[in-house]
């Protein structure tokens, strides 16, 4: 049996690790080296972080009839999807943060044609960040520079071990950079979180707070930095955190979804203000930890095309409107989902409202998930970066080409979107 070895980029998360080595034999993956458990689920049909649990790969287009999903041909599925989306009064295109850039470009084209709203799956996470940049400015550094130079790293509401596992090793904590040759021995690392996570094992400081204490903690830090702190801070740890931040030469605040889960706009606004204030004397960057592999690509596209990194809505008279607030699903009467599992994240009441109103869902996905279970039409897709070539942006905005390694009869999501544009 002939074994071929290939280097490949992992699409497990926004790190886009490019040091994976894959052994291929007879058109199948035999072994993947350097991959994390998160990434493993991209190469084998298993669940994220649960390698024993199998994931069902979709191979045929499906149409729900009389409550049951039945196999149909690609042409039939495409016609049904086009009819659903074309006849909708208010269509929504949702997700896209786990698709390649070519597919994202096609989805934006489709949104324009359908006069739909295009909703990034992680809008609630990213919109507060961009609003914060607008208000306070930014110091943007690619991960290359952070790895080389950052001597102080703060994780705020983020546990990269669960959202982008190799981030710590490749870029932020243990990585041996050009001027940080001893890695974690030279870096100061802290975390702010609601829980005492695994991060405590290597963080010099872990500030554990209660829900809704984020703003008080930040106010306390600001007060300490400006020398106007009260004797007893409202949140324990503010003084230590202020001291930690003020010692940096080159610091980075990586924030995760924990930072935006409550009072997201206010927390990010204050964090952005803090980074700008610290940046007056030292170098400080505020950096979102994107879990989805091409979230950055989507916002890059929106910035390029529309100048606004928010959800564009082409369904308004007089031009496109953009929204920073997550969508109200109650407005929409048809949904196209790709690059996300909508029903996994949707609160119970909203999911049941969609089902009660019988809002038709068209889903493009390589694997069965909660959304495909609730969809009217399901179109299986090839896996980007494995079965089809694509482009994706690493979480610092650098684009990488994802290679095609394996043959497949399944179409790429971009091709399906282009077919939909023709068919609608």
């Amino acid at each position, binding site marked *: 049996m002939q074994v071929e070895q290939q280097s490949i980029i992992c699409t497990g998360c926004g790190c886009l690790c490019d040091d994976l080595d894959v052994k291929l034999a007879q058109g199948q993956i035999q072994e993947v080296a350097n991959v994390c458990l998160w990434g493993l689920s991209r190469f084998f049909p298993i669940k994220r972080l649960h390698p024993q649990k199998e994931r069902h790969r979709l191979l045929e287009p499906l149409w729900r009839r009389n409550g049951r999903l039945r196999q149909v041909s690609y042409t039939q599925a495409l016609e049904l999807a086009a009819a659903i989306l074309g006849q909708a009064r208010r269509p929504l295109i949702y997700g896209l943060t786990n698709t390649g850039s070519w597919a994202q470009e096609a989805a934006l084209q489709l949104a324009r044609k359908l006069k739909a709203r295009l909703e990034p799956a992680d809008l609630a996470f990213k919109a507060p960040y961009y609003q914060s940049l607008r208000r306070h400015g930014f110091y943007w550094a690619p991960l*290359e520079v952070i790895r080389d130079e950052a001597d102080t790293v703060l994780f705020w509401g983020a546990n990269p071990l669960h959202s982008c596992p190799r981030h710590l090793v490749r870029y932020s904590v243990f990585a041996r950079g050009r001027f940080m040759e001893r890695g974690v021995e030279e870096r100061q690392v802290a975390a702010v979180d609601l829980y005492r996570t695994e991060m405590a094992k290597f963080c010099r400081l872990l500030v554990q707070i209660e829900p809704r204490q984020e703003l008080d903690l930040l106010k306390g830090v600001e007060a300490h930095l400006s020398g106007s702190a009260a004797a007893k801070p409202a949140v324990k740890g503010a003084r230590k955190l202020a001291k930690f931040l003020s010692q940096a030469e080159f610091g980075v605040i990586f924030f995760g979804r924990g930072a935006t889960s409550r009072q997201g706009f206010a927390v990010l606004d204050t964090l952005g203000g803090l980074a700008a204030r610290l940046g007056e004397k030292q170098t400080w960057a505020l950096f979102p930890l994107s879990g989805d592999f091409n979230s950055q690509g989507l916002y890059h596209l929106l*910035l*390029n095309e529309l100048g606004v990194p928010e959800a564009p809505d082409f369904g308004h008279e007089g031009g496109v409107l953009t929204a920073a607030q997550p969508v109200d699903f109650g407005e929409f009467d048809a949904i196209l989902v790709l690059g996300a599992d909508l029903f996994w994240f949707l609160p119970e009441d909203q999911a049941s409202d969609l089902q009660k109103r019988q809002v038709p869902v068209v889903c493009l996905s390589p694997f069965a998930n909660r959304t495909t279970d609730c969809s009217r039409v399901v179109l299986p897709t090839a896996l980007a970066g494995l079965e089809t070539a694509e482009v994706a942006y690493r979480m610092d905005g650098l684009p990488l080409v994802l290679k095609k390694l394996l043959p497949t009869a399944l179409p790429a999501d971009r091709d399906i979107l282009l077919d939909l544009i023709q068919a609608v």
Partner: protein
Amino acid sequence: MNLKITGGRVYDPAQGLDGAERDLLIQGDRIVSSLEKTDRVIEAAGRVVVPGGIDLRGQVATYGLNFLGLWNHFPSLQELGRLYAAAGYTHVHEPFLTMYTAGYVHRQLAAIPLVDTSASLVLNLRDMDNRLKSLEQMEEVGQTIKSLQEKTRALDLRLLEPFVRYRQAFYSHRTLETARTLEGLTRLALDCNLRFTLEANPEVLELPLPEPRAFHLAALGRAVTDDRLLEPALARLEEGGTADLGFELPGASAAMAGKPVKVDLGGHYPLDLNPGGQEPLAALRLALAYQGPNLAFSLGGPVRNPVAEFPRYFSWLWDRKARPPAGQGQLPPREFSLWDWVWATRTLPAKILGLADRGHLQNGARADMAIFDLPPDAPRRRWINGLSRCHTLIKAGVVVVENFELVAPETPKATYYRRTGAEGGPLLAEICQYRSLRPENLWVPDELGGPWVGLD
């Protein structure tokens, strides 16, 4: 298609044509001396015909630049291409591409329609600091730079920081001050047949340049921060070095005022996308005081200098009454002729970028030309109206703009880079070992840009 452009007043400094009435013949994408048959005649009587414009320092694809959209300060890439075409430009050169942002820059450049593109590789001298001190290792450094240039698909080489400094005190023994760095770079340029574009600053002007012709000074006007520096700036040009102006509007943008808008490209200082801006009088004074052939036109930065502002800057050059009130009386009375303008915006930029078949209208040149509706007797105050938007733009023999309307939005375009054929040695391997990406992913693959045209 065979085209004949008849009756236009042709301005082409390369041929010594200063408004002479000439017919121009185009076969395919080239200018030719004769045609067997003509498919189409474009009437240009009473109009000005010039080569297609080349923006020597068009900051359009710098890493992080699209964040300026947050303050509505940057047009979409589609819009940008249309603006350039409407202004009579056929090529834009991005100044800031680094080893690891090369893919980003090229993907952005590829998304700009209509105009051809290219980029400068910004060298980080920290990657080769110790070797720059040693005469014996110049050859290796030169080969490495050439190899980097080809792998990142850059057209030329640029230095933002002509020194080596470190944030970390631990590395201070590796510091290289500007004078010593310039000495090393000059030797490198002479030994390895390289030419560097050096972002000008006051320190560079105050130091002697061992061989001015080894350097092109970019945004020279911005470096003339006081009157005392005008003389050394002029001296650089008189010594045979080339430069571009780097016009910049004063005052910070209101929406971005006081906010840091910086991108770290891995140098000692970050790239400031919202610099305070300075009075353009120094750049203007320099442009008017220097009467030789070595000064090209360029703008200083992206935020306040969109291509739509070009005509305003041009009018300052050719019409003394249009100049900023603050400069009235202080500036030399000289006014640019159309010949001077064509030289500074077309002929010289093409020479500087090494685009041998652009910037002129000789036989064999690529048929890139702009036709402006400017009557022969138009007073200078009217030039801004006539030269703001081109009546007809022809790119590689294709009519792109006709009667002020974009008629060929899908015109093919390409990204130009220098094919050096150099292989990287141990120094390149050393540089790559610090990067988080494997070398094959650092270098720009076909898919991230193009279509590509490699120049030898």
